[in-house]
């Protein structure tokens, strides 16, 4: 069974369309989305509409919750006052932009998705099984991940939220982060070299093997950046899209 799993599109329809083209070539059996369809990007409704149209099973992200329930806070861990100021603008803009019908859709997304493929218990979440907005970074303590896998009776946990993809083997189990489709981030603070491409995961479960691939997909990031500038969203979001290499 081949699964395509993606998350953190953040209103970037150009990136999502290219990811779907790549998924189309990858011959997958099922597609899942781990949330954060909206926020920061200029096409929140287009992204939601496409996900709805394709009937993709989707987990709720913290930003989806913020917009769906019309909250002032997206549950994002902003570190500076400037980040907070830009974040406030983003959620305000997105809440105004997203249609009532799409907000209803966001409010009714699942908390998690549990799959059993071959003999593998797979748990799909946005942040972590514990919390919608918990960050499970690539250097998260091994013991904590092991405990989490045991506690939630999962062989594989797939999460998003951090925007940084990784594959970690925890004994004979795994924790995987599928990266981000629409908003790339540097791996370390101050690092200005990071990939601009959209990322997603291909998870292939065989009878006695688990194969994982992080796909990296080119898209017209300039188009998205231009749209951000014209939309009234902070220009800094366009620079993040343009950033990296």
């Amino acid at each position, binding site marked *: 069974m081949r699964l395509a799993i993606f998350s953190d599109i953040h209103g970037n329809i150009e990136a999502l369309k290219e990811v779907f083209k790549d998924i189309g070539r990858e011959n997958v059996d099922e597609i899942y989305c781990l949330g954060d369809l909206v926020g920061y990007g200029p096409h929140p409704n287009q992204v939601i509409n496409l996900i709805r149209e394709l009937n993709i099973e989707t987990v709720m992200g913290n930003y989806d919750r913020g917009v769906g329930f019309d909250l002032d806070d997206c549950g994002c861990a902003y570190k500076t006052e400037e980040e907070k100021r830009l974040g406030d603008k983003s959620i305000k803009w997105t809440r105004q932009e997203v249609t009532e019908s799409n907000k209803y859709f966001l409010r009714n997304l699942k908390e998690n998705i549990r799959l059993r493929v071959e003999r593998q218990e797979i748990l799909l979440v946005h942040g972590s099984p514990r919390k919608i907005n918990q960050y499970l970074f690539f250097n998260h303590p091994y013991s904590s991940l092991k405990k989490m896998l045991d506690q939630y009776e999962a062989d594989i946990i797939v999460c998003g939220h951090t925007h940084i*993809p990784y*594959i970690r*083997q925890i004994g004979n189990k795994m924790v995987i982060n599928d990266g981000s489709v629409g908003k790339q981030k540097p791996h370390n603070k101050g690092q200005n070299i990071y*990939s601009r*491409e959209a990322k997603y995961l*291909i998870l292939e479960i065989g009878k*006695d*093997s*688990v*194969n*994982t*691939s*992080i*796909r*990296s997909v*080119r898209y017209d990031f300039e188009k998205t950046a231009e749209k951000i500038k014209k939309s009234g969203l902070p220009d800094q979001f366009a620079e993040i899209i343009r950033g990296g*290499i």
Partner: protein
Amino acid sequence: MKNRRKIFNVMFVVFILITFTQITYANQDEQIIVVNLSHRIERSFRPETATINLEVWTLNKDLKEAYTETTNRMNQVIKALKSFENVTYKTQNFSINQRYIEEDKKRVLYYEVSTIIEAETDNLTQLGNIIERAVSNQATDIKGIKYGLKYSEKAKNQVIKVGIEEIKDKAEIIKESLKKDNYKIARLDINDSYNIYNYSFETTRSKLSNDTQSLPIPEISPKDVNIYVNFNVKIEYNNQIEKKD
């Protein structure tokens, strides 16, 4: 100038299909005849860019060791690519696959860690050198080569322009056959496709991984880039209406 000539020095493989799909009398008094016309044009261009997919993979019982070895070898490949001018690269895929290998009648779990990068160049004469250098610097596979055009939109527009001229010629011929005075194009639908012929150059893994000597530079003949455009046209024919005093 030479590059410019390359664009225009296309090998004309023109493939035209014209079909009359419908003739209707919209208005008997005015004698308007509506003709629906399908037209297809295809042109081959000499390629101007090439994208080579280079893979490094390693197999190890220890995942960390496999990961480290793959990363080190890929760094070596990237270092080798940096010695070429006009070569850009980006990661396309990172994967960890579980492989069972029989050892002493026991199935032992190995990890195959693979990274694929796309190296793009607009100097097609150095394709063979790039491959040779990558392979002699620890690349395990060449996963394929894609050819493209530097200014594909411009080439597409050229083909569309020629196609429209051909449609006008055909419309004139039909006008004479129908013994009509005038025609007008009432609707024009254009579906353009940009078809890149892929050329796959697969190397032998076992041979490469054991071979410490530099391999001969492979001979590579770039494949043409085909652009084809389908037109659906609705043409209305009528006679000049005599003016009544």
